[in-house]
């Protein structure tokens, strides 16, 4: 009796092993490195997506691996790759890291997976940092699928503008005078967090008529009149208009709170902060691109793309791509946008009822969306760390009152050319 129940147990045990073994053989693990860059319940939202996907695809195991900020994810991936460790199948990293990542041979081209129809539905601006002609054959390959994307926006306290009888600023002059008029002893007219300047600076440069980068990956335009103008305008905002604190402001984290509390009338910030600002402000919040020098609105793209790692086996790659397509279906990108404040990257998503309902209740979301169409390409070139360093250093020298804009930008251009010379 006893031995019979024992052998029964053994048989059961073997069966369980066989079943799990078989399922382990068929199931594919898709691990994803993900950075946490904003203050929203990202982990729960993503786990919800994974659970939903796995319920429909029982042979796929989706595992999110949260690795800190964008820099941590990139460093982790590069370190694991170098040490010969097991790479994840997918990672969210900055769109601007495309050259570094491809050069390090940790990501793979996606042209074989992405159909033209699929790509056509992405708002084209988002793909402006997704292509790279690595092998130099004249054809760009696709590497980054837009997912966690943002732009630079001007947020303003519309009630204060109305009270002061001011129109919504439409050019640099109006922006500066409005900011000046709204400045009091306890309130800054405008906050432009400029301690990590390039991203917030780019819309101002674009507003003066040019971008600091072209489509080339080995060319920058730091010493053009547009850049010098924009930098001079930043300086004028405090030196001439006294509408913002003098010099370098390390207030990226504080600016949204300052707007909400009434300590600032306008701020320049990421679209990613919209959720927090709208949820907490007890006044009408206005949202727009950065006014151009002579009118118009300007902004620049930002945020992260999905990259598929190189060297994963074919089955994993297929499963990973299927998940990428599912994750970037309009239903998901709209839901992601509503829950986090990042943009919906799919054009057809704007036709969905969920979006229409949301945009109806939050007109700011639609205003921000409009900025995407005129967003400039984000600063990204080869040796980005080096080139960005010299650009930042010279901008900060101007803000600290050490150099004049023209001299500083000429110096930045010279150093950048020197760094990029190895690629020519």
């Amino acid at each position, binding site marked *: 009796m006893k031995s019979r129940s024992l052998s029964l147990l053994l048989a059961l045990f073997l069966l369980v092993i066989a079943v799990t073994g078989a399922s382990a053989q068929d199931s594919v693990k898709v691990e994803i490195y993900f950075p946490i860059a904003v203050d929203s319940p990202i982990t729960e939202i993503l786990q919800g997506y994974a659970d939903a996907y796995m319920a429909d695809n029982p042979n796929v195991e989706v595992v999110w691996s949260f690795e800190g900020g964008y820099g941590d994810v990139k460093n982790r991936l590069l370190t694991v790759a170098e040490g010969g460790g097991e790479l994840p199948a997918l990672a969210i990293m900055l769109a601007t890291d495309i050259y*570094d990542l491809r*050069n390090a041979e940790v990501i793979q081209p996606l042209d074989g997976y992405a159909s033209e129809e699929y790509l056509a539905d992405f708002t084209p601006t988002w793909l402006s940092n997704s292509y790279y002609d690595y092998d130099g054959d004249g054809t760009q390959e696709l590497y980054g699928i837009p997912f966690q994307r943002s732009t630079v926006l001007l947020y303003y306290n519309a009630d204060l503008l109305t009270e002061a009888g001011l129109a919504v600023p439409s050019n640099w002059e109006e922006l500066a005078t409005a900011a000046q008029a709204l400045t009091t002893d306890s309130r800054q007219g405008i906050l432009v967090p400029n301690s990590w300047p390039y991203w917030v600076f780019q819309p101002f440069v674009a507003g003066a008529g040019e971008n600091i980068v072209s489509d080339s990956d080995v060319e920058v335009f730091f010493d053009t009149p547009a850049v010098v103008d924009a930098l001079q305008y930043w300086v004028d905002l405090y030196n001439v208009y006294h509408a913002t604190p003098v010099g370098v402001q*390390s207030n990226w984290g504080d600016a949204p709170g300052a707007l909400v509390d009434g300590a600032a009338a306008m701020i320049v910030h990421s679209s990613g902060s919209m959720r927090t600002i709208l949820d907490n402000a007890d006044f009408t919040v206005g949202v727009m691109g950065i006014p151009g020098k002579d009118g118009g609105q300007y902004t620049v793209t930002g945020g992260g793309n999905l990259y598929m790692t190189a060297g994963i086996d074919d089955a994993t790659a297929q499963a990973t791509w299927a998940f990428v397509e599912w994750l970037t279906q309009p239903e998901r990108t709209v839901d992601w946008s509503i829950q986090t404040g990042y943009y919906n990257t799919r054009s057809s998503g704007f036709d969905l009822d969920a979006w229409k309902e949301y945009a109806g209740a939050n007109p700011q979301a639609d205003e921000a969306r409009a900025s995407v169409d005129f967003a400039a390409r984000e600063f990204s070139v080869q040796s980005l*760390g080096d080139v960005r360093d010299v650009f930042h250093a010279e901008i900060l020298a101007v803000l600290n009152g050490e150099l004049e804009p023209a001299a500083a930008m000429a110096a930045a251009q010279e150093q950048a050319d020197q760094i990029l010379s*190895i*690629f020519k």
Partner: protein
Amino acid sequence: MTSVARIFAPNERGKKINLPPYLLILPTFIFVILFTIYPTLSVFRASQEYYHPNRPNRTQMTDLNLPGVEEASRSIRGPHEVGLAYFRAMLDPSTSEGETFFQVMRNTLVYTIITVPVTMLLAFAFAVLVNRSLRWIGIARVAFFYPTMLPLVSAATIWLFFFTPDYGLWNVALRLLGYTGQENWIINRDLGLWALMIVSIWKNAGYFMIFYLAGLQSLPQDVYEAADLDGANWLTKMFRITLPLLRRTTLFVSVVAIITAFQNIDHALVLTNELVTGEADLLLYEIYKQRFVLGNYGFANALTVVMILVLLIFTLSNFFLSERGSDER
């Protein structure tokens, strides 16, 4: 005698190799080889290799922008064997590596020369201040020691607020003293390094105070009594008795302080990370930056070799100096 007992028996003849002690340190020794000696040797080897994994694997005519490397058709990504090219570049200020190296060494030197004596002076002053049997002296001791208990990252984060222009505590205090200069201490070519030094001094003075306090409390009282009988004043006792008797504490503290100065990086990552280019970069921070931010592996490894050599010199000198000190006693 069983064989085991024989192994552990004292070595009578003195010629046979006494195995057990070696067996006992073997596990530690393996770890030291694996995690200290092997990495040290491999970084020496890696410092002779050009490797820029963030550059594309494109072949072109290039001298890799390194002195002593002949122009040839090669990949700008590497890896390539370049011998001592990085060390040559570091000694040649006209190369970008040389420019960086000179600046970083100058920064590190200024940082060390200022923070070490100031920290030690403060530590000694604090120790003398709290080395009394007064009521509530414990509170003063805690107050001086408190910064030590904070991780450097937290200390730097606190100072991030102190250094805030306009209303930051540090600037408010300075203004009360009549300061009218720049208030942006962190993201500033002129002041960034000073900000790091201030945080380091604030953080470490309390730590070294403990050593001085321990030293002060173990001083023999009879010499002071004798000095009192001779009518020696406070100043004489300080310079003729206390300081000479604390000589070994001072030596120990100075070596530890110098090594700490080379090893601190956390506050740079919190305060000036990637925001001040060059002017506030210390050696260890520069290694991190070259390796992880700029992807210049060979240069990062060459800088690491310099770092290892500097620390080795200080560690060895500490070892020999303190050995000699104990012989004297």
